[in-house]
């Protein structure tokens, strides 16, 4: 069963850290990713650039509206993701707890839609 671990962090914190602290932080994420890989649970992962590098796109009345900045203006922003495959929610929650982001921010755990034909039917409200 696949789950997304979505790491949400206060972006103002990273620039305030010393170089040593940043190196430690990076090492922690590296170790976490290693552990997931060794366990055969990691499907994909990525570290997102800060939300100041975001651009939003919305199409209304056939016209594209392109704006600078993230969708939601808040202190905590999506910072990274881990796509994992584990047997059940408790296993996913255990990994979320070990993710360094849960120490300084929040990790959201959301299951992926299982794409079988009847699931597709269910998703369109059949």
């Amino acid at each position, binding site marked *: 069963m696949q789950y997304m671990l979505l790491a949400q962090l206060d972006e103002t914190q990273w620039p305030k850290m010393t170089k040593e602290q940043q190196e430690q932080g990076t090492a922690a994420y590296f170790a976490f990713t290693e552990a997931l890989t060794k366990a055969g649970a990691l499907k994909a992962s990525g570290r997102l650039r800060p939300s100041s590098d975001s651009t939003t796109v919305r199409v209304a009345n056939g016209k594209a509206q392109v704006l600078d900045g993230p969708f939601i203006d808040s202190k905590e922003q999506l910072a990274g993701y881990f796509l994992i495959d584990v047997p059940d*929610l408790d296993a996913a929650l255990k990994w979320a707890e070990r993710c360094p982001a849960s120490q300084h921010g929040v990790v959201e755990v959301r299951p992926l839609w299982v794409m079988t*034909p*009847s699931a597709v039917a269910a998703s369109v409200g059949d």
Partner: protein
Amino acid sequence: MENQVPDQSTQLAQNAAEAVARRSYGKLVAFLASRTHDVAAAEDALSKAFASALGTWPANGVPTNPEAWLLAVARRKFIDVKRGDRFTESATDELPIMDEIMAAAPENSEIPDERLAMMFACAHPAIDASVRAPLILQVVLGLNANTISAAFLASPAAMAKRLVRAKEKIRETRIPFRVPAREELPSRLETVLDAIYAAFSEGWTDPAGTDAARRDLAEEALYLARLVTELLPDEPEALGLLALLLHAESRRHARRSTAGDFVPLDRQDPSLWNQNMIREAEMMLRRASEFGAIGRYQLEAALQSAHVDRCRTGKPNWEAVVTLYGAHFALTGSPVAALNRSVALAEVEGPEAGLNAMNEIASDPRLAEYQPYWAARAELLARTGARDEAAGAYDLAIALERDPAVRSFLKQRKGRLHSPSHSRE
């Protein structure tokens, strides 16, 4: 069929079906749900099986093993539904489950009891806290959404929707049906116990037991608490909860006078208390203490025990009560525990000491709308002679209380503030 007396075979069939339902509904749902992770589908399949039983048992006789019969039929109904889905599931996903269901629990053996695993799934932290208790009541005890919604003061439609969503979440996020491992058990068990306690509290808000839905809820919660202690005999907090509920329930008939007036604990007639329940509660608490792992429910049960002891012997034990509430507050940070401690402190050191302790928690926003806080405050203010302040506090308490008997009691106490021979009662 209202004017027809059912014939004997139909009546026998109905009685048998009801007996199995009472004894085994939860076990059957838990077994099916734990194998398929689909609580709603398990419930549907089982209700179809019961309907089928009521249809065929009158003619064919009640089977020797009704549980196994129902399970076999429920399995077939479950598979039929899955096969009949508009777009059939890919073979890889469903067939292993179907095989397992078919192979499990042959005719003559006992159906494994998965109720505990199901309760842990229902009380999982991922499930919305306000729906855990209703969910457990529905899936373990078979209570329908209407009964549950009436007891929890929700509209049937709103409650039904929340129950559906919770069951969907269990299925779609794959919340496991499993008794948690040793390390996690105490904290996860707490959410199960909290859910049972919530159900009991809803039932307890009808102290005279005149509202059938709520009185039954208290009984059902008591049943669940007992069940958990049977399934987890070495968990002191489970024993503590059972002791607590037994103590509370033992005094049901003493809480209201025959005229329907509110009777506070210290004025109740102990001969109206259920002695068997109290004895059982004490036994459970003793057993819990042997594990040497104190917890919130054991503390609350111990406090009940202390109150009962004081009422029966007439010997004050307020120092012990202060200590117990202090321990409760240290453990939980509950402002109610701190409040009760300050009331007990007043008994030992006088009303000023009690008020000082109360003032330490006065700024907690949770107490602003808590009737007993204002009532207790009024009491202590009255005892220090601050009658006007006391009257103000009584007014607040009265405004916050929805039970007419308690309101009436509070009004009486307020009325006595300015009586010529006002004294502490």
